[in-house]
C-alpha cells in the first residue's frame, strides 16, 4: 500500500464524489395512474337498507359530575344528595364541646359553569331532609338508590325537613349560606349507622320556580362544595371552626314527560336526543351494511362514511354536545321503553362528536368512517349506533332529528359511503 500515493486518493475521492453528487430527488414525484382505484359512492337510504331508527329516554347517574343541581323547572325536578362521614370529623373535637353544626352552601354564578342557565335566575326555597336509605353516588338516579336497589319512593327516601334556605338570583360574588343541622349531625355522630346522608330539594316542586347549582367535590374546588361546618370550643376555651367535605355527593332528576315503561317507540317522525341534569334521550339507528343490501363490498376501504341527519333545534336553542357510540345489542322499532332502556352500547369509545350551538335546521354530517369500515370488514357485528350526549349529567336541551318515518322525504336520514376497492396485485390482469 506504500505505493498508494496521494494522487490516487484524489482519483478515488473524485469517483466517490461523482457517485454521491448525481442529483437530488424531487420532493413529490409525479406519475401516471398511480392508484388506479377510483372512489365509489354508495347512498344507503332508509327504504333500501333495512333502516331502523328510534329514541328512548334514560336516567343517568351524576356522581362523577362537577356540579350539583337542586330545584324544579319546566317539568324537571332535581334533588341533591350529600353524605358526610362522621369519621372525617377530627378526633380532638369532643362532642360536648360542639356548639353548632351547619351545612355551608357556597352560592355563586360563573359563566358557562354554574347558575348561568335561565332556570337559575329566580329565587328558590330549598329544604334539607335526612335520608333514610343509603345511596351510591355512581349509581343513584330518580329510580335507584344503588345499582340494583330502587328507592322506596321515587326520588329518594327521606324524612321531614330539618332546615331550609332561600337562594335568590345568583351573583358573580360568592355568597355563603348556612343551615343549622346540629341535632341531625349529632345524631349521625352518636349513631353512625343512621347516617344515610341528607337531601336538598325545592320546597315546592310543583310551582317549578327554578334550579340552583353548586360545585361538587369532583370540581376540584374544595371550598366551593357544600361543607359541614363544625363550631366548637377547644381545650384553651377558644372558639374554633372545622370543615368536613362530603364523602358522597350527586343529584337526581325527574321529568314529568318521561316515557312510561310500556311506551312504544319506533314510528315517530322525529328522533330526540340530548340531556338535562341526568335525564337523557338517546337516538339509535341501524342500517344494513351487508354487501348484498348496501352495495358496499366487504373488502372495501372506506374513505368517508357520513351519516346525514336532518337537525331541528330545540325551542331553547342552546348548546348540545353529542357523540356516536356503537351498539352492542340489536333493537327493533316498536319496542317498549322498558326494552330499549336495556340497550347496550360501547360507552368507552365515542366515534365522532358534534356540537350544536345555534345550528340552523338542515342536514348535519356525522363522519363515522372508522365505524363503518369496521362493520364493512366484519370486525364488529353491526347492531347499529347510538347518538347521545357523552355526559348526560350536563344541562343541555333536547333537539331532534327527522326520523325515517318523517312525512317530508327531503328530511329523512341516510348514509353515504365513499370507498375504494382493494388494490389488485400486478398479476391480476394475466391471460391464460
Amino acid at each position: 500500500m506504500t505505493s498508494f500515493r496521494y494522487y490516487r486518493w484524489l482519483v478515488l475521492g473524485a469517483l466517490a464524489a461523482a457517485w454521491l453528487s448525481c442529483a437530488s430527488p424531487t420532493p413529490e414525484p409525479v406519475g401516471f395512474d398511480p392508484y388506479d382505484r377510483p372512489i365509489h359512492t354508495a347512498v344507503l337510504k332508509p327504504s333500501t337498507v333495512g333502516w331502523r331508527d328510534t329514541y328512548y329516554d334514560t336516567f343517568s347517574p351524576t356522581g362523577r359530575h362537577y356540579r350539583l343541581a337542586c330545584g324544579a323547572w319546566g317539568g324537571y325536578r332535581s334533588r341533591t344528595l350529600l353524605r358526610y362521614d362522621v369519621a372525617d370529623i377530627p378526633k380532638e373535637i369532643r362532642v360536648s364541646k360542639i356548639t353548632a353544626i351547619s351545612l355551608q352552601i357556597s352560592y355563586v354564578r360563573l359563566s358557562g359553569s354554574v347558575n348561568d342557565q335561565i332556570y337559575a335566575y329566580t329565587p328558590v326555597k330549598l329544604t334539607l331532609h335526612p335520608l333514610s336509605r343509603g345511596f351510591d353516588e355512581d349509581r343513584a338516579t330518580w329510580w335507584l338508590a344503588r345499582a340494583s336497589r330502587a328507592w322506596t319512593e321515587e326520588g329518594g327516601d327521606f324524612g321531614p325537613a330539618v332546615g331550609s334556605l332561600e337562594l335568590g338570583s345568583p351573583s358573580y360574588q360568592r355568597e355563603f349560606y348556612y343551615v343549622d343541622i346540629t341535632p341531625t349531625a349529632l345524631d349521625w355522630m352518636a349513631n353512625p349507622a343512621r347516617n344515610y346522608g341528607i337531601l336538598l330539594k325545592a320546597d315546592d316542586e310543583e310551582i317549578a320556580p327554578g334550579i340552583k347549582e353548586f360545585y361538587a367535590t369532583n370540581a376540584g374546588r374544595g371550598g366551593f362544595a357544600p361543607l359541614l361546618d363544625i363550631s366548637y370550643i377547644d381545650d384553651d376555651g377558644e372558639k374554633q371552626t372545622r370543615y368536613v367535605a362530603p364523602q358522597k355527593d350527586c343529584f337526581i332528576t325527574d321529568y314529568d314527560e318521561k316515557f312510561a315503561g310500556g311506551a312504544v317507540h319506533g314510528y315517530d317522525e322525529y328522533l330526540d336526543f340530548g340531556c338535562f341534569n341526568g335525564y337523557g334521550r338517546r337516538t339509535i339507528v341501524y342500517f344494513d351494511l351487508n354487501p348484498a343490501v348496501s352495495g358496499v363490498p366487504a373488502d372495501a376501504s372506506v374513505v368517508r362514511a357520513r351519516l346525514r341527519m336532518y337537525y331541528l333545534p330545540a325551542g331553547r336553542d342552546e348548546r348540545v354536545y353529542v357523540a356516536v357510540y356503537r351498539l352492542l345489542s340489536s333493537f327493533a322499532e316498536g319496542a317498549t321503553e322498558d326494552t330499549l332502556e336495556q340497550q347496550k352500547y360501547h360507552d368507552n369509545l365515542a366515534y365522532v362528536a358534534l356540537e350544536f350551538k345555534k345550528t340552523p335546521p338542515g342536514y348535519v354530517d356525522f363522519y363515522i368512517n372508522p365505524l363503518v369500515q369496521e362493520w364493512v370488514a366484519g370486525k364488529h357485528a353491526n347492531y347499529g349506533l347510538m347518538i347521545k350526549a357523552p355526559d348526560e349529567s350536563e344541562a343541555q336541551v333536547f333537539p331532534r332529528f327527522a326520523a325515517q318515518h318523517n312525512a317530508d322525504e327531503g328530511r329523512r336520514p341516510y348514509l353515504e359511503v365513499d370507498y375504494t376497492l382493494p388494490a389488485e396485485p400486478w398479476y391480476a390482469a394475466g391471460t391464460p
Partner: protein
Amino acid sequence: MKSYVLVVLMTGLAATAAANTILSVGTPGEPAAAVDARALGMGGAALALADGSNLNGLNPAVWASLKRAGFNLTAVRGYNSYETAQGKSVNVNYDVPGVEIALPAAENLTVAFSFREKLNQNYEVTAPLEFGGERIGTSERRGVGGLYALRLGAARRLSARWLAGLNAGYDFGAPEEVYTKTFTEKGYSDVQERLATSYRGVGGALGIVWLTDDHLSFGAAAELYARHSCREETSNDYVTLIESDHQVDLPYAGGVGAAYIFGPRARAALDVRYTAWSGFRVDGVGQGFRDTVEVRAGAEGRINAGRKGFFLWRMPYRCGAFYAPWYGRDYGTYTAFGVTAGAGYLFQNNEDSRFDAAFEYVRRGSAATAVREEQMNFYISVVGVETWFGKQQEEGE
C-alpha cells in the same frame, strides 16, 4: 476473516436496497443488474470472459478460471427520472445488487457463494386525487423490496479448453406495494392499503465456457427455477382484506457470449441473452409479458499492461453498449438503449484486487404511453483476491 464479516454485513444491507423505475408499476419489478462494475463498464457482456478476473456470477463456469480465492462487492447509486404528461420526476436510489465469494477448493475445482438481487420492485409514483371533478387529496403508490437469490455453486476445469459450473440455492423476497390516499377535504380518512407478497423457492444456473485457443472463447449459461410459492396479503389500516396463496413460475433465462482476448492489453466481449417472460405464470396463468432479447457488447483496454509506470496508463478502461427491451405487458414497444464506460484501479502488487467504477446511461421510451425514462447508474465494485484474506503471495512466487 474481517473481510468475510464485512461481506456478510453488506449482504444484509442489500435487503434495504432501492432502485427505482416507473416501469415496475404493474409488474414483478425491474430485473436487477447482476454484474459488477467491471462487466457493467463493458456493457454488461461477460458470459464468456474467463480471464481469471471475472467475478460476477453471470456464468458459473467462469469461476473455474479463478486461480485464487476472491470476493466481489458491488454497490450502485442510481439517478432515475421519468417524464409523463403530468411532469417530470427524479429519484435517487442506492442498491447493492450482488456479493460473490469464490474459493478454489481443490485442483481445478472452485466453490462459490453468491447473493444476488433478481427483481427490484422499488418505485414511487404520486398523482392528484380527484373526486367529483375536484382535487381532494393526493394518491401515492409505492413499491418496496424485491426478489433475492442465495446461491452455492461449484465450477470445474474439465480440460484445458472446457470449463463448467453450476449453482443452486434459495430464492426469497417480500416485496410490498403500498397504496396511500391522503385527503385534504373534511370528513375523509386517509387510507393506506398494503399488498404484501412473499416469495419462496429454489433456483439455479448452469454454465459452460469453451476456450477455443488463447484468445477466443465462447460461453453459455442458463438460469432455471423450480415453481415458487407466493403468499399474498392485502390489508388496510383496519383489517386484512385478502389472503391468498399462489404458485409462481419465474421465467427461464439463457444466453450465449463470446470473448476475445487480444493480449495483456485488450479484450472484448459480446453477449446475447434471452429471457422467457412469456413463461412467467401465476397459478398457471400467463401474464402477457413479452420475451426479451438483450444484446450487450463491450471492450476493455490498457495502455500499459506492465506493473510499473504511471498508474493512469496502467488502469484498464472500458466501454460498452446494450439494447434491452422491457418485458411488461402495458408498455408495448418500450425499449432501452444504454451506453457504459468504466475504469479500474489495480493494486500494484496484486492486480487481481482492484476498485472498479462504471457509469451507465440508459434511455427508455414508448410511443404508446408517451413515457420517457432516463437512468444514470454509477457502479463501484471492490474485488479482493487471496492476499486480502491474509495470505501474502505475489504472483509467480
